[in-house]
């Protein structure tokens, strides 16, 4: 089977040297390159390789995360113990506990926020290099208006999303954490409400961008796909109306070019999909592990800790959830776009 694929690829390479030489996916960034499989022909195997490589590198992150969470649990136990002594002021011990927990968690949260922001930028940068290649490959296969529409849509939404995340949602995550800490320290209801509003605003901004993008891609896919199909049918009619021998030559050439362009587009697309996955998976797993650990810590601290401290730990896990949503949205948007390019002109 592999030999057959190789022969077909060789044939296509010989049939159209221009495409094979010019259309190659941009190389994945250095860090993602370490996770990339040596052979990117099979998407399923490649994805499994990327996942395995990323999980193997996760061990130190899990150890560090566990260390921070154990320290948090120790602080909560200590404040509960001190608070239970007669004569101690409950408010003071709670405030001290809140400050200690915030100090412990802010360091790792800050690193992960920066990690998420860098990943979003990296994904966006890679997407901007990959989009023109995929557009050219799809146009070479006959999807001229479809490819241009997907490119424009993805580039606009990517620029909007990347700009909003790096310049608005990331600072808003810090504000969300600050609100959470202030709410736990001061205990005012207004801060709690504003903190919840921040969380709602961030998650809905991401959801709305993704919904609108999916809607745009679906509608333009139908509209421009129909136009491309009509153009391809018109070309076939022109070819069939030509002088018999010329018609046969044109038909053979057109078929070979379209099949070859499809193979090249598929190869570029699979590499692109794997590169996007390789860029996103590392930070996604790191943040995901921290998210789960903090959820677990909040659940454990809920048993013996004060309500405010437990809420603060939940807020930190909520912030991790928001970071997951940010990286996930950008990654998903690029993946949807790539799949649309790979689907090409149907019918």
């Amino acid at each position: 089977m592999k030999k057959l694929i190789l022969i077909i690829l060789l044939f296509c390479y010989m049939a159209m040297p221009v495409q094979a030489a010019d259309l190659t996916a941009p190389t994945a960034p250095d860090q993602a390159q370490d996770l990339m499989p040596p052979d990117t022909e099979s998407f399923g195997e490649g994805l499994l390789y990327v996942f395995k490589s990323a999980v193997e590198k996760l061990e130190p992150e899990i150890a560090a995360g566990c260390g921070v969470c154990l320290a948090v649990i120790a602080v909560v136990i200590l404040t509960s113990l001190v608070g239970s002594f007669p004569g101690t002021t409950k408010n003071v011990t709670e405030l001290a506990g809140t400050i200690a927990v915030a100090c412990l968690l802010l360091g790792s949260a800050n690193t992960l926020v920066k990690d998420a922001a860098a990943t979003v930028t990296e994904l966006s940068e890679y997407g901007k290099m990959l989009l023109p290649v995929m557009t050219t490959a799809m146009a070479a296969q006959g999807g001229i208006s479809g490819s241009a529409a997907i490119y424009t849509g993805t580039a606009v939404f990517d620029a909007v999303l990347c700009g909003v995340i790096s310049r608005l949602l990331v600072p808003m995550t810090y504000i969300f954490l600050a609100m959470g800490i202030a709410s736990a320290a001061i205990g005012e209801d207004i801060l709690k409400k504003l903190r919840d509003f921040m969380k709602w605003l961030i998650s809905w901004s991401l959801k709305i961008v993704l919904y609108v993008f999916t809607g745009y891609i679906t509608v333009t896919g139908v509209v421009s796909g129909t136009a491309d199909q009509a153009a391809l049918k018109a070309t076939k009619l022109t070819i069939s109306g030509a002088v018999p021998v010329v018609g046969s030559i044109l038909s053979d050439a057109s078929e070979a070019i379209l099949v070859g362009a499809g193979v090249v587009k598929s190869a570029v697309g699979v590499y692109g999909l794997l590169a996007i996955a390789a860029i996103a998976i590392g930070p996604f797993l790191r943040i995901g592990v921290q998210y789960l650990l903090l959820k677990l810590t909040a659940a454990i601290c809920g048993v013996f800790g004060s309500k405010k401290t437990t809420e603060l730990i939940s807020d930190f896990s909520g912030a991790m959830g928001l970071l997951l949503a940010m990286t996930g949205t950008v990654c998903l948007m690029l993946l949807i776009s790539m799949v649309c390019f790979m689907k090409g002109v149907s019918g």
Partner: protein
Amino acid sequence: MPDAADQHGLFYEGGERIDGIKGYLLSIFAAAIICAIVTRLMGDKGTHGTMAKLIAGLFLTFTVIRPVADVKIDLSGLTPDFSIAADQAAAAGESMTREAMAKVIKSKTEAYILDKAVALNAELKVEVTLSKDDIPIPSAVRLSGKISPYAKAQLQAIITQDLGIEKERQLWT
């Protein structure tokens, strides 16, 4: 095709807008903290507590509403750069296909003529010229080499009939 950095135009130009929103959210955050501290210090009960809550509420409402009056929505220049880049990339793909197709058609047409020439015992060199249409079709041919008058007449007829290249566009040297 514009490079990756050039395609980032949207929020480089619109950066002030985002910074404005960021500043707005920060001012709400600061106002909320001030309100929370003031109401906490004044206490919940009594006239002072009620007055403090009222003033804090008014202050927060003012902080939330005031910048909204200054909002100017300007969406000009949102997509043109991207659509131009998209059209360029699509045009590159289209011309790539056309070039590759022209190469295949040219070589296949030349091979067809040479095949017929060999069958007529002629040794020829053939160069086919294609039309500049969207679908490139053979429009002219230049033939050179040894060929008998009978074979030449036969081949001329074949080229006209099978490939649609008129005798006037068949250049024999």
